[in-house]
């Protein structure tokens, strides 16, 4: 087994007296989709916020390609190749697909910040990258606000990859979408997986989705890892059991019947 692209060792995060994460170990490998599962409040978002530089850990270490790293800001994480795609953050609805794709990293000739935009070149790259990942934007000048939720998610993913992300973090990318668009995002994830050199961390509450695409699972409950393994090593029953925070389905059924 090769070295993990990104890993966390005994990661702890406290918000004042509250321990959100307590000694988390996580290993993510390239070319794999790693599902991060757990109940509401388990600490999934807190964990990926540490991976993407938004929060700093209280203790424990982060390693990229085996080397210890310290992210002071999201910028540091981006520079280290960690691309985070949030559902709402990071797209500008009134601006064109191309301007969104290159936002903050525009191609220009001349002196920054008054350099003249190389619009034609950026349009071509945007079109090519979007097509590669499975969306044919007929007009790169189209405003992002007119795109569907799935297309926007895909745009954000294509952008992160084009600008060198080797770890892609997707926090509930399908939660606000309709059935068909959820599938679109899952397809996008599988295409990215097929590149072979990019790792994807996928947070979801949807058991079916996680089983459809994930190669490896990590389960969190109350800020601790309660189970992990590859798809092959985990039985379907285990996954359901662990997703519910370690409570057996049979118990839940009893509880429901008792009401």
């Amino acid at each position, binding site marked *: 087994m090769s070295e993990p692209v990104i890993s966390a060792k005994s990661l702890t995060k406290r918000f004042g007296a509250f321990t959100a994460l307590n000694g988390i170990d996580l290993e993510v490998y390239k070319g794999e989709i790693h599902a991060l599962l757990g109940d509401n409040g388990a600490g999934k978002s807190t964990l990926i916020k540490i991976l993407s530089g938004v929060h700093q850990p209280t203790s424990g270490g982060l390693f990229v390609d085996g080397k210890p790293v310290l992210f002071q800001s*999201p*910028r540091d994480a981006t520079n280290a190749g960690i691309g985070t795609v949030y559902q709402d*953050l*990071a*797209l*500008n*609805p*009134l*601006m064109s697909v191309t*301007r969104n794709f*290159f*936002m*903050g*990293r*525009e191609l*220009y000739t*001349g002196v*920054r*910040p*008054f*350099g*003249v*935009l190389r*619009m034609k070149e950026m349009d071509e790259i945007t079109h090519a990258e979007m097509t590669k990942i499975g*969306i*044919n*934007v*007929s*007009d790169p000048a*189209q*405003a992002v*606000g*007119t795109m*569907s939720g799935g*297309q926007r998610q895909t745009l954000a993913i294509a952008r992160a990859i084009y600008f060198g992300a080797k770890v892609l973090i997707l926090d509930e990318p399908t939660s606000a979408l309709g059935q068909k668009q959820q599938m679109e995002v899952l397809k996008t994830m599988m295409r990215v997986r097929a590149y072979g050199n990019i790792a994807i961390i996928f947070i979801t509450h949807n058991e079916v989705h996680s089983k459809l695409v994930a190669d490896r699972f990590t389960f969190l409950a109350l800020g601790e890892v309660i189970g992990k393994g590859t798809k092959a090593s985990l039985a379907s029953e285990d996954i359901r059991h662990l997703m519910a925070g370690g409570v057996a389905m049979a118990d839940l059924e009893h509880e429901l019947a008792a009401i």
Partner: protein
Amino acid sequence: MSEVLTTAKTPALRTEASRLVQRGRLAKLIRSPEMGAFVVMMVVIIAIAIASKGNAFNPLGLKNNLSIIAQFGIIATGACLLMIAGEFDLSIGSMIGFAGMSMTLMLKWGLPFGLGPATPMSAFFITLIFTLAWGWLIGFIVVRSKLSSFIVTLSFLFFLRGLTEVCFRFINQSTQVSGLPNYKESDWFASMFGGESFHWFYNLWYTLGGNVNQLGNQWVTGFDARVVWWLVLSGIAYFVLMKTQVGSWIFATGDNRESARANGVPVDKVRISLFMLTAFCATIFAACQVFDTNTADAAKGNLKELEAIAIAVVGGTLMTGGFGSILGVMFGAITFGLVANAVFFIPAIDGSYYRVFVGVVLLVAVFLNESVRKRITGGI
């Protein structure tokens, strides 16, 4: 059953891309953000031409109209860029008063700290340093405090107006300065602001047989110099906004600031720079006024901030930021300038009509803009 199958098949043949109908050039033009402003402008031009029996567009009428159009245009350009970035500046009018006070007091009483008499150039540049510093401070406070720019600049509206009056009284004993030498005759720098431009235009008009006064000589010799400032400022603003990197940043800052920041757009620098730009525009406005009339008083620029915002909105700029057009602002400035000046050409009306018009047009423009935004964002 077979019917169900055929209907289920159709979606597979259609792709997302095929749902976006490619529009023709004309259709695109009609849907462009400045279209509303253009139509309003054409209606106003025709109405005023008829009501004034053509006098609004005779040589002198044209000069006077363009003079006020350029005034409006200069400050509205700055206000528009700032609004696209999602902020307001209510201090523009007071900044005009402050800049006029600063320049005329220096010209009359000499440079500060006993540095000797002022020239138009030194008075202008020292004033510009002051106003840019104010603009920077306003921007810095907005960015750091995270307060709405509406409130911060409202406080500067009062503060700068009061400061202007205090300075006038303290240094000059009176809240106005008049009787300065006619600098534009002798000083090239002053004539850049207060002098005339486009002589060739009126010369050509005279050569072609028009532009003749009652004595049979050439009537009007040129437009006010501020027309050049307006055109140059608008041209640069258009280019920067549409074609350069910083233009993309201005749109991004106003559209979704947090997303722009997350993508590495320096949103704070963009906003501070634009507050300095509106201060710059106010200073140009004041310099044109001072060197044209050789006077200043404490009330100069009153209400100009609201007119600048109104023109920007009529020109298609969204109140919520992220969207706007310099071309639209030029149309808006022409509209407002013509109507503000109409009292001089149409005997039956007075200044009240101008305000009635502004009120009505503003409301209509906001409705229009809202529909534009819905069309572009698909109703989000």
